[in-house]
């Protein structure tokens, strides 16, 4: 018995993890894939019907799907770029010796730990066109009031602002952690060589920070692509379909239209996109010679 355990110790130790991955990850994805080839409206009477690639074909001809695809990328790219730039700037600022740094860092955490649905509800009030504080603020500085989330043109930028507000601190904190752990000697060498501050930043800080920034961006990118909570809590994809990203459209297809097959197909496409994107980011990182 002891012999058996000793011979198989590596399997025994990894078993819980393997089981967990199998049950919680492989099965749901596999089942979704299976469903994506079927037509099923959650009926207990008529079982899922095999339709081959129909669900995928329907989606590619569906302009709402194309729009959702575009909105997803628009939201993700704009939000992550703004968050990255702002996050790095904030981290640099916080790396200086300023009074109350600890307090500021704690305050930074607040948007991140708040429940996204609660964040969404708060922003609904802020953006409310009739009594919201956003319009009161705009009027105070002499700009005409906006309809924010209720305007098809303004809704995506308004949502991006929420996302930036909520997630910039995360990038800032990760970058700050990277900054703090940077070696000191390159800076001393730079001082000796007479580099100015901009040169030091561009030629030393930024290259050394690259791995940290890459990881922060990758984490954020994947998370932003999947954003569901703040959009569902504020607009449910509206007005009309103006903020209907892939995730929201999947929800609508599944739970409002009862088209589980199509919703599954959409999720599989989404899955492939996210997977492809993360492989790409990792490959780029490798090519840049950055390791962690």
């Amino acid at each position, binding site marked *: 018995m002891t012999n058996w355990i000793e011979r198989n110790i590596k399997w025994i130790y990894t078993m819980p993890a393997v089981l967990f991955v199998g049950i919680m990850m492989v099965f749901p994805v596999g089942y979704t894939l299976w469903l994506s080839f079927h037509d099923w409206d959650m009926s207990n009477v008529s079982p899922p019907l095999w339709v081959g690639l129909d669900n995928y074909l329907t989606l590619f001809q569906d302009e709402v799907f194309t729009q959702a695809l575009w909105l997803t990328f628009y939201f993700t790219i704009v939000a992550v770029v703004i968050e990255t730039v702002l996050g790095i700037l904030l981290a640099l600022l916080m790396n200086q010796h300023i009074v109350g740094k600890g307090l500021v860092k704690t305050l930074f955490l607040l948007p991140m730990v708040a429940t996204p649905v609660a964040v969404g509800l708060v922003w609904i009030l802020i953006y409310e066109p009739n009594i919201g504080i956003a319009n009161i603020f705009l009027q105070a500085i002499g700009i005409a009031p906006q309809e924010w989330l209720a305007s098809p043109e303004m809704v995506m930028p308004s949502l991006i602002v929420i996302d930036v507000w909520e997630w910039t601190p995360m990038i800032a904190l990760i970058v700050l952690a990277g900054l703090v752990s940077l070696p000191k000697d390159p800076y001393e060498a730079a001082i000796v060589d007479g580099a100015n501050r901009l040169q030091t930043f561009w030629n030393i800080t930024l290259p050394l920070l690259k791995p940290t920034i890459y990881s922060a961006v990758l984490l954020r990118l994947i998370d932003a692509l999947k954003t569901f909570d703040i959009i569902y809590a504020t607009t449910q994809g509206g007005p*009309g379909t103006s903020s209907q990203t892939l995730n929201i459209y999947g929800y609508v297809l599944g739970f409002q239209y009862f088209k589980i097959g199509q919703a599954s197909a959409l999720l599989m496409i989404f899955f492939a996109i996210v997977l492809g994107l993360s492989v790409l980011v990792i490959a780029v990182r490798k090519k840049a010679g950055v390791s962690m």
Partner: protein
Amino acid sequence: MKKSFSRLKMAAGALSLIVGLGAVLAGCGGGNQAAPTPAQQPAGKTEQTIRLVAANHPWTEAVKTLLPDFEKATGIKVKVDSYFEDQLTQKTSVEFAANSKSIDVVMFRPLQDGKQFQKNGYFASLNDFVSKEQGLTDDIIPSALGSVKDGDNLYGIPLVTETEVLYYRKDILEKAGLQPPKTLDELKEMAAKLQDVNAGLYGFVSRGKRSPAVTQFSSYLYSFGGDFMKDGKATLNTPEALKAFEFYSTMLKDYGPPGTLNMSWPEAFGVFTQGKAVFLTDASSLFTNATDPAKSSVADKVGFAPFPAGPAGSKPYNITSWAIGVGANSEKKDAAWQFIKWVTSKEIVGKLQANGIPGALKSVWDSPEGVAKFPKDLADAIKANGAVGVPYDRPLIVNVGKARDAIGDTIIAGIQGQDIKAAAEKSNQDFQAVLDKE
């Protein structure tokens, strides 16, 4: 080492995605799986617990306060879970589709989910229960009963009825020396005349959000002589329908507050009860939101009138908005039925209606106590609507969700000042595609 480590990162990244997606698919509900099954009691007076899955609705709130009476009389405990409308649909369908036995009694929207749920085999038939009770359904308003039947198969009992009425500000109309509008043209004239945008007062408010707007738009559609469909053909591009779309969206565009595109009833009522709109058209069953001083700053200034007449007369919807049924897989169907029988009895419906929740029993509507809690003009308006009402406020089909979105597209195009005719053609095509798949 470096390489294998980055592989590991890649794998970890990939797995984190899968978890995320899995979570999306597995249903954004989370908590509240199966209700704990009570210990089986030996024979005798059984102590059972049944689970009622209900909507966040005044009905549910009022019933909760009456539950102790039911428990005392029958020994059956009722555990209530309540959700917002859309989440309720999602929650119940996911549980039913998983063949879960944990839903004993379910509150549902007959016109929204009824046909789909029935087709999917989620409901137990109530025929056997009802046939044992002589005349149980005789007192129910016939059209209400019709909305919970599939042929001869009864799968629910109506709970709440509603019709679209005109809410208006008595004080403002009185000051202007006006009577409440009798026609839609008068409504438009008065909205234009009484609106004072600089003072933050808008002429009219109603739902402008894609899907929620459709039910309130239906009365306008009928009153202009149109309908959603005829003999399986979509009729959203008829001249009558176009006029109705034009009228409804113009009212919101020209006389509505900013932001109507995102307004369902809570937002529309919010504007009205903040004293920022003169007129509102919405469901009668929501009236306490406007007349309760805790919720409304104009509580004592709200008047009610029947739905104004269009070119085809006044044709408001008059529907059963909520009904109650038994889950097909419930193991406590008898207890579930006992609860339904109790909660739809004349006594309880009388008590609920006395709390301002319009039920579906003729005798309660005819009794003085039944309408005592309703403002007199509202009771009159409901009665007037009842005589001319249309028994549906959305297409009577299975896939209501998609149809509502298709129809709502034209409303929001109109509110944005886009070409209504083109939008209606598109809606008509999309809606026809839904009908073709029925």
